């Protein structure tokens, strides 16, 4: 089967600083793919490149077969309508209510009557576990966890088959983070989504991801979670077998 996202030989550099040097990545249908890496390793740059927000110095980025690095804005539009993105800080439009935030992609891409816009937006808001009265609130009135959920609701506005999440559980308390992991799994199973998720959260990774890609030395080492956990690379060993990870790993293996 054709990979949903395929990155080959990606090179990104800012001035003399090389962020990615021949990075390969592949995300398959129906999987939750976790992108892991140290601070400054270029996780966000990778995501921005995949989203077409940034042109790479070299390499190809294919989303369902089409190489987005050489497409114009107009050609990118239908591809962008096919995926949803929830940014790290939510990036909700602060001047719009949650309902209007979710409606915006639909208004941008579709011609729908107002009643349908409202009904669909409410559906997505309820789907991500927000109460209906959150719809009329402005982002500044929401808690951190609600902002993240609202961002996912907006990402789901166009019923995409592919969802990008940038550190969805960062800044959440463990209970909210676990609830968010449940949401990710629920959406993945019920909507048959392919999810690409940048995360630092070990609990999240063990809970939700099928495969993991670790950015080390400007490249990506990827594989199933079991394989990656046993990878000999020192950074990966430190990440999965460090002080903070050991308890979690023991629990996962014990289960």
């Amino acid at each position: 089967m054709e990979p949903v996202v395929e990155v080959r030989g990606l090179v990104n550099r800012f001035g003399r600083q090389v962020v990615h040097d021949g990075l390969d990545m592949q995300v398959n249908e129906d999987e939750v793919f976790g992108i892991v890496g140290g601070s400054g390793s270029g996780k966000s740059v990778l995501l921005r490149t995949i989203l077409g927000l940034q042109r790479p110095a070299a390499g190809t980025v294919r989303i369902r077969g089409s190489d987005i690095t050489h497409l114009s804005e107009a050609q990118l539009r239908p591809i962008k309508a096919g995926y949803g993105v929830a940014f790290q800080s939510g990036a909700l439009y602060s001047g719009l209510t949650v309902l209007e935030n979710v409606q915006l992609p639909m208004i941008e891409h579709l011609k729908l009557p107002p009643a349908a816009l409202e009904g669909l937006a409410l559906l997505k808001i309820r789907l991500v576990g927000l109460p209906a009265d959150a719809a009329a609130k402005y982002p500044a009135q929401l808690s951190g966890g609600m902002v993240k959920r609202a961002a996912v609701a907006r990402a789901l506005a166009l019923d995409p088959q592919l969802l990008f999440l940038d550190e969805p559980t960062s800044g959440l308390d463990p209970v909210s983070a676990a609830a968010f992991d449940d949401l990710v799994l629920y959406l993945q199973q019920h909507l048959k989504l392919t999810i690409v998720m940048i995360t630092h959260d070990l609990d999240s990774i063990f809970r939700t991801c099928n495969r993991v890609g670790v950015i080390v030395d400007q490249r990506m080492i990827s594989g199933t979670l079991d394989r990656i956990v046993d990878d000999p690379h020192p950074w990966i060993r430190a990440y999965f077998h460090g002080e903070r990870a050991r308890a979690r790993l023991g629990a996962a293996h014990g289960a």
Partner: protein
Amino acid sequence: MSATLTRREAVEVRRTAEGLELELTGEWSVRALASIEAALARIDVASVPRVRIAAEGITELDLSGAWALRGFVQRARRAGAEVDFRGTPPDQLRLVDETLTEPAAPDDSALPAERLAAAEPGGRALVAIGRYAVRSSRDLVAGLAFFGRTCTTFVADLARPWRLRPISIVRHVYDTGITAMPIVALIAFLISVILAYLSAQQLRGLGADIYVVDLVTIGVLRELGVLLTSIIVAGRSGSSFAAELGSMKLNEEVDALTATGADPIELLVLPRVLGLAIALPLLTVIADLIGLAGGALLCRYLLDMPLTQYVNRVNESISATTFWVGIIKAPVFALLIAFAGCYRGMQVRGSARELGHLVTVAVVQAIFLVILADALFAVLFMRMKI
């Protein structure tokens, strides 16, 4: 019974003895939703005893498509029809059903005032006026409090001048003063040209050419130099103060300062106020100079007046106070502009839209306050016979 067959894009409707049979076909996705909604809306379910839906023909069904289908099913049920599916209903429909039928929180967010307004049409205007009055008076009190706090901080810092952040003040003198010089000079020049042209046209007929000099000199020195400079600075720096502080508020930078024990008024507001209070008088001096130079140029080429005669006339027309009457207003205007900008900037909370709104308010209020203060100065100086 005759069976009518209507061919549509997404729905095939067949009327039978028991009721309707719907054959759903094709792509039921968000992309096709507009035509699906239209097709479903055309189906008349009034007095149909039974609706049977076959969904196996759908090639792609997403949540939006399922939502549209659910809407139709509910409409048919409300109309009294019995709805069932041939085979199993699609999973997506069940998911939408589950999502939307969870107990919704009672919507109790309407404020008492809104209820009153809704209950009584005449109450609406009254509520609006009352609210506006309360908000305006609170705004005024808060503005005065802000002004007072800044003043007390300044006075307290006079005893320990090292806390006045000289480097920060210098930066603001540069940003609001030095970089504004070209535009201020250009505008002062153009204004003196306009003034000279206008007065020359009127006075030449009376043979009173020489009074053009009086008009330009007194006009620029007393009023126009400082007023136009202030208006430009209000647009440039008033807005930049409000935008800068406002985005710092949005970014929680101001909260971070407060949390570290630093006083945002002392650190952010005072340097801007003092910087502008230094820069604006200096800009006014430049505007005055350029204005007089522009007058000289015009008199030379428009009225063929030699430069020496212009200078002599300028000396005769102005009194000892003319220049000072203009320049004394500059620091006052600077304070008004800086306070309007900083105060509105500090009021920003929550949203980018509010930032834009408050920057606009800051500039409009700064210009309004400057002109109001100028009018008060005019009355004051007249009473003082200056």
